[in-house]
């Protein structure tokens, strides 16, 4: 996902490099070989496969775009598209705003701020399977953390993960908890880059804290804000583990994302042509977001 600094090329090197010959290829050949076999070939092979009716054991019939027309009429698939978009709406703005708030609050040199930064980033180093295990015992109605707290106040437990309206929001809360470290750190890095002179000028104008925040700080980190939004869209688009482990996409498909659909169609139903077609749609959507990231990152010098 790191198209960001791709523009930093040094044109000088094209001219004055070591003399061109085929032995130079030896340095890049090992990587290129793996890249071609494991990325380029599967990419095109998957596109070709998506035009076939195929199962795992080799039977293949060319069907043209039939898989795609089937997908667009498949209520479950359309539901996964909706769930994925809904999940992005639930998580991405929250991650950006909480991340920015934490960065603003913790952008200090005190020991307490350093410890708190460490605490808020710590969940980011855990694997999805540990995170979901921790949060399932928060959410389960039978002895979960929330249920236990509710019980102390004499309230009945809530079955978050088996309620159609609450399953995806519960997964979103888990995800925000897991992922909050990255946006916070990106904003902190951006805040460090704001020129001191701007604050000095604002102080000379007797601008208060909120005025300084609105007219100096936030405009200076505009580009980072856009970048955080796009990075998180790309990341959250790939929602899989949390849904697979916490709800299995249920109840009644209410929390099934695109990637879980691809996984189940491909590896449970072995309808691999159909799964490959769904994967092409995922690829197209992510490609658009990645291109947006590239163009935002390219404007580094401007804002």
């Amino acid at each position, binding site marked *: *996902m*790191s*198209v*960001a600094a*791709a523009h*930093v*090329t*040094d044109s000088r090197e094209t001219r*004055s*490099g070591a003399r*061109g*010959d085929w032995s*130079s*290829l030896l*340095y*890049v050949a*090992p*990587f*290129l070989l*793996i*890249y071609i076999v*494991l*990325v380029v070939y*599967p990419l095109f092979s*998957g596109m070709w*496969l998506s035009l076939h009716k195929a199962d795992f054991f080799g039977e293949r019939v060319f069907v043209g775009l039939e898989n795609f027309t089937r997908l667009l009429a498949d209520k479950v698939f359309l539901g996964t598209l909706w769930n994925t978009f809904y999940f992005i709406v639930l998580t991405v703005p929250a991650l950006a705003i909480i991340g920015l708030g*934490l960065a*603003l*609050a913790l*952008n*200090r040199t*005190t020991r307490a*701020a350093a410890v*708190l930064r460490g*605490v808020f*980033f710590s969940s980011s*180093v855990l*694997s*999805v*399977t540990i995170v979901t*295990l*921790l*949060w399932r*015992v*928060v959410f389960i109605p039978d002895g979960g953390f929330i249920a236990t707290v509710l*019980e102390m106040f004499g309230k009945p437990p809530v079955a978050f993960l088996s309620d159609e309206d609450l399953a995806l929001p519960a997964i979103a809360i888990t995800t925000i*908890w897991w992922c909050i*470290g*990255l946006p916070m*750190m*990106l904003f902190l*890095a951006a*805040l460090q880059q704001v020129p001191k002179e701007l604050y000095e000028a604002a102080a000379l104008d007797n601008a208060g*804290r909120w005025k300084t925040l609105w007219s100096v700080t936030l405009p200076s980190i505009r580009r980072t804000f856009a970048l955080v939004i796009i990075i998180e869209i790309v990341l959250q688009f*790939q929602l899989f583990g949390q849904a697979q482990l916490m709800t299995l996409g249920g109840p009644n498909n209410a929390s099934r994302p695109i990637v879980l659909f*691809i*996984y189940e169609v491909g590896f449970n139903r072995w309808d*691999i042509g159909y799964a490959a077609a769904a*994967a092409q749609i995922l690829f197209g959507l*992510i490609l658009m977001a990645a291109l947006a990231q590239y163009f935002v990152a390219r404007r580094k010098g401007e804002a």
Partner: protein
Amino acid sequence: MAAGSMVGRTLSDRLILVAVIVLGIVMVAPIVWALGLSLKTNAELMVDTSSVLHAPYTLQNYWDLVIGSPVFRWFVNSMIVSLGMTIGVLVLSSLAGYGFARLEFPGRDIIFVLVLFGLAVPEQAVIIPRHQLFSELGLHNTYIGLILPGLSTSFGVFLMTQYFRAIPREVDEAAMLDNATRFQVFWRVLLPMTLPAQATLGIYTFLHAWNDYWWPLISGTNAQMYTVTVGIASTQINFAESAGLGFLMAQAIFAALPILIVYVFFQKYIVRAVSGGAT
């Protein structure tokens, strides 16, 4: 953003402090709750989970884990896969980064752009053909099979190319004057200068390999080949009727511990690697 003490002077300072503390509690609550559950016997938890709030506590679950859990086997698998992937990525990315930054060969710039394009290809989009390929090659449920896909990501090549480009060409030229061969220039002169980038890339790769769920879930389906991440998932599938809440939590805490300990000591580098990897 004047540097000031956390203890507020004004009302808004205090409100910010309260908000941060509340969020901090939300941050640690699930871990503390899991820790509490792991220190309780199943018999006690069956009756009432609010008993977590008071003694008696016991290490029984951890002891059961030491004698009867496959978690150690998973650790060994994770370690082999993560180290293998880290070393592989560092070697391949350094060679390719040097090649793209310093050498000339036919089609270099176009090939580099095509490699960068790989950054926009999510693993999930190529999973079906990749799975088939590994079936044909008989690589499922092998360490090589678990490691290889990690070596195909373009990020490391991109990072190292940028880093080599930032080193002034005069460094190479001076070494060339001393009659060093091209490989000696790469190996003895330039490579040591890329150490900070190697550290960033190494930590980033290791963490990703250790925490990866998607590929090991699909390729390492044999219980003997589970990594920690997949192993912990396998215990959750039969959540209700499995070994018991206390034991499950002990396993989760135990699995999280090594990475959290490493995090405490190398926090600065890990944060830099993860943030660098994202942008």
